[in-house]
C-alpha cells in the first residue's frame, strides 16, 4: 500500500471540502472492506484518504410512516439488518441485508460504500432498486437526489461525480399488501458472491393474481436487479424456471 495522509472530518461539509481540495488524489473510506483490498493490491493508490467514520449521525437510520426509511450512507449493513423499523416495514431489506456476506463483513461495510463501489456482485443494490430507493448526493457545490437505478452505470461504474459524497438513501414506505422475495444463486460455496441475485416485489393488485403465477411474473409491477447490470426489468422470461416461490406476504 502506498503512504497516504489520513483525515477524519467531523461533518459532511468538512468532508466535501477535503474532497474538493484533494480532487484527484483523495479517496473516501467508510467500512473499508472493498477499498482496502484494492489499495493493498495497488489497484488504487490515493495520496489522501478521507474517513467518514467520525461524522456524527452519518450512520443513523430513521423511519417515518409518511417519509419512509432514511438510511444515512455510513450505516453498516448490520445496522440495517438489526433495525426494528427495517424488520417491520421493509422485510425484503431485512432479508437482503441479513444475507450480505457474513456478520463480520456486515459489521464493517457500509451501505454508502457498497452502492458507490458499484459492484454488481453484491446484494443490496437489487433490493433497494426494487423498493424504489432514491439517493442523495452532495458536494461542496450542490446537492442532488436521484433514483438509485439511475446511479448504476456499469460494472463498478456509478454516476458519482468528482467531489460528491453519497449521504443518504431514502426508501419509500411500500404499499400493503406486499409480496417480495430475494434470492441469490450460489453455485459453489454459501460464502461466494452470487452468480445471480434477484429481488422481487409484488404490490397491491398483482398479489391477487399471484396464483396465476406465470402472469404474475410478467406483471409490470415486478422489478429486479441482476448480475452485471442493474436493469429494472419489465419482463423477465429468464426467470420462469428459477423464480422463487412468492410466499412472503406482509
Amino acid at each position, binding site marked *: 500500500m502506498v503512504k497516504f*495522509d489520513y483525515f477524519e472530518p467531523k461533518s459532511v461539509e468538512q468532508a466535501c471540502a477535503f474532497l474538493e481540495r484533494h480532487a484527484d488524489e483523495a479517496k473516501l473510506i467508510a467500512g473499508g472492506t472493498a477499498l482496502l483490498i484494492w489499495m493493498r493490491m495497488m489497484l488504487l493508490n490515493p495520496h489522501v484518504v478521507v474517513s467518514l467514520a467520525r461524522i456524527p449521525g452519518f450512520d443513523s437510520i430513521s423511519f417515518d410512516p409518511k417519509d419512509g426509511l432514511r438510511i444515512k450512507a455510513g450505516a453498516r449493513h448490520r445496522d440495517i439488518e438489526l433495525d426494528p423499523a427495517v424488520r417491520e416495514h421493509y422485510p425484503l431489506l431485512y432479508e437482503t441485508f441479513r444475507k450480505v456476506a*457474513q456478520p463480520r*463483513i456486515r459489521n464493517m461495510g457500509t451501505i454508502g460504500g457498497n452502492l458507490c463501489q458499484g459492484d454488481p456482485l453484491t446484494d443490496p443494490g437489487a433490493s433497494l432498486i426494487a423498493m424504489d430507493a432514491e439517493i442523495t448526493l452532495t458536494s461542496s457545490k450542490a446537492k442532488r437526489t436521484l433514483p438509485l437505478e439511475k446511479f448504476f452505470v456499469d460494472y463498478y461504474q456509478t454516476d458519482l461525480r468528482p467531489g460528491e459524497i453519497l449521504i443518504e438513501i431514502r426508501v419509500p414506505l411500500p404499499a400493503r399488501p406486499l409480496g417480495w422475495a430475494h434470492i441469490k444463486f450460489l453455485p459453489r460455496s454459501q460464502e461466494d458472491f452470487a452468480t445471480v441475485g434477484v429481488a422481487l416485489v409484488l404490490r397491491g393488485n398483482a398479489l391477487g393474481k399471484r396464483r396465476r403465477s406465470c402472469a404474475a411474473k410478467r406483471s409490470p409491477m415486478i422489478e429486479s436487479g441482476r448480475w452485471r447490470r442493474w436493469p429494472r426489468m419489465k419482463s423477465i422470461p429468464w426467470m420462469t424456471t428459477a423464480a422463487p416461490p412468492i410466499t412472503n406476504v406482509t
Partner: protein
Amino acid sequence: MKRKITLTVNGKEQELEIEPNRLLLHVLREEIGLTGTKEGCSIGVCGACSVIVDGRLVSSCLTLAAGCEGRDIETIEGLAKDGNLHPLQQAFIEYGGFQCGICTPGQIMAAKALLDENPKPTADEVKEWMSGNLCRCTGYYKILESVMAVVNNKISPDFQFRKREQQAKIQSLDVYKPVAKTD
C-alpha cells in the same frame, strides 16, 4: 506522516505512532506484539484476523489502525484471565475444535462476538455467524460442537488443562533416599 493514536487493547491503553496506511492487524502483531491475531487471506474472506472493535466483530486486515483511535479492541490474548481459559477456549480443547490452530483465534473471537450478542444461539445461527471463518483442517463439525457446548453449558466445571500442577512440591535432592512406598 505518522499519526499518534491511542487504542485500548484488551483493557490496556496503548499509545502508538503509526503511518496511516498501517492495518490494525499489522499494528497488533508488529507494534503491540500480539501475534495471536493471524493473517490468512489478506482480503477479509477467511476470518483468521477477526478481532472485536467497540463490541463489533471485524476483520483486522481490512481495518486501518488510524481509524481505531480511541476504540476498544479485544483480541484472543485478552480472553484468558489469570491463566483461566474463557469457556470458549476450554470448549475448543475439550471438543477438539481445532487441529492446526491457525484459524482458532479468529474462530474463538467470532464465537465470542456472537455469544456476547446472543448467548443462546441455535446451531443454525452459529453456522450462519461462523461461516465467514474458514478452517481447512476440521471440516467445522467440532468447531460447531465446541461453540454449542458453551451455549448448552456442556463444558466441564472442573476443567484443568492436562492436569498441570500449580503448586508442585519439588523433591529435595540431597535428602533423597530411594525406598518403596505403600498405600
